[in-house]
């Protein structure tokens, strides 16, 4: 699947690279440049929003847990992509931790909860709502574990639209593979595939953070296209 994903993204990149600037467009759209893991870095950029993406720039799937996302002047799409992919990597880790044992949501000071909340803008009702949903899983004795792919969620940044210095919309393809376990330890469900997601990030005090993520319909690489 990864090879197919790269092929799709490469095509998108070529299209993006061939598109010219449009100074009259207040927003800037670009496609994520790579799915290969690269550590997100603190990036210094110009103050003028860029309108194209350097196809040689690699974004990150950031498997590490606590990479910095503070980017004082991150405004070009390529730089934002790096930061957003880093956020997604941390999101995947945080969600996986919570799903493995949703009971952690009962403790607002637990590392899993604080790691999750740290990805969102302060006092995010969206994040609190998700935690409440997982708490309901815990109350019903439900938990999750990875399916055959080995990871419950693996999110890849697909496309970014920069609306302003402090706000960006982006799309994500989230490969998922999981089993649902009931209170008795029985597997009651197994799901998998690729989920298309619309998301928004905002910059708060120089740090890009998530605002919301919504499951939607859209084009993602078809599962199994790399085999």
């Amino acid at each position, binding site marked *: 699947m990864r090879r197919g994903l790269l092929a799709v993204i490469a095509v998108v990149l070529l299209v993006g690279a061939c598109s010219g600037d449009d100074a009259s467009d207040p927003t800037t759209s670009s496609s994520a440049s790579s799915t290969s893991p690269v550590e997100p870095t603190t990036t210094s950029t110009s103050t003028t929003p860029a309108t194209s993406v350097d196809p040689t720039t690699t974004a990150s799937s950031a498997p590490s847990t606590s990479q910095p996302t503070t980017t004082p002047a991150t405004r070009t799409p390529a730089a934002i992509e790096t930061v957003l992919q880093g956020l997604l990597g941390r999101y995947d880790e945080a969600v996986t931790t919570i799903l493995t044992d949703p009971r952690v949501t009962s403790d607002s000071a637990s590392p899993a909860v604080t790691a999750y909340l740290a990805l969102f803008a302060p006092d995010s*009702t969206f994040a609190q*709502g998700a935690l409440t*949903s997982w708490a309901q899983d815990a109350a019903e004795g439900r938990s999750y574990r990875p399916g055959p792919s080995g990871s419950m969620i693996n999110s890849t940044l697909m496309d970014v639209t920069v*609306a302003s210095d402090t706000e960006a919309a982006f799309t994500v393809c*989230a490969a998922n593979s999981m089993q649902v376990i009931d209170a008795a330890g029985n597997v009651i469900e197994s799901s998998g595939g690729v989920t298309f997601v619309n998301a928004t990030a905002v910059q708060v005090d120089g740090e890009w953070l998530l605002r919301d993520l919504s499951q939607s319909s859209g084009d993602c690489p078809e*599962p199994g296209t790399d085999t």
Partner: protein
Amino acid sequence: VNHARLVVAVGVAVAVAVGAARPASAGTPAECVDYSPLGFCIEWGTPGTEGPGTPGGSGGGDEPTCYWVNLDYVPSDSTIFVDYGIEPPPEGVDVVWQALECSDGTIGDDMRWIIPPGPRDIAEGVRGRIVGTLPGPTVASSPADGVPAIVGMPVFVQVTNWTGVVTMQECAGFCVTVTAVPSLTFNPGEVDAPPVACAGPGTAYLPDGPPAEEQALADGACSYTYRLRTRVPGRPPAWSGSVSVTWAITWSATTGATGALTPVTRSADLPRAVEEVQTVVSGGHRP
């Protein structure tokens, strides 16, 4: 391995809705009311104009609604377990295979098997389908939207795309009927003004009918008489009124089971400037 796109059997049993992003009311932050296990919003609670991933938006959006829909066959290609990352079902256990289908006609790249759902699970899925059809209110008012109201003169509000009661049924050995009953509320937005519970789709002002004040007093009239003018120091240019339709949703199964599901609310902003008319009496007798 390329799988042919999965053929979905619509009209068998529909299961849990998994994607329903609704628009957020302009100026009103949307709130997610239902999440997928992965933490993605699958239903926004406040309608409006901004969408998820939409700059300036607060969640919501005019997104398609997606549902888990039963397949009318059991996938026989074992590569599906590898490609989709799905564990084979336990031996000897009856399961239902489902795929994601969206209201815009697309079929998602997510699949799952589940232990056969109970009536409430089916009802949740049917609710999701209904939610995808519920519109934000289109409002007609007197005075018309954008025209200032007059202190002491009633304003009338009516929803022109009233759905009435919505009913949908799905059967899977037993049948589940889900019913959504709408109710209309007019929030005038004026300081200390209580919400007005309206009858049916609201009230249209009848120019040839009784006096406006009398029409406003009718039982269930969707009307409010503003008391405070706007555009004076300490008050806004217009009162931030709104109109909301809330569908109470219940279900019943032929097994005898019944229940209530999460209601759905759609709103539209109806700001209203209010002016005061001062009467000058001229030509009177000067004592």
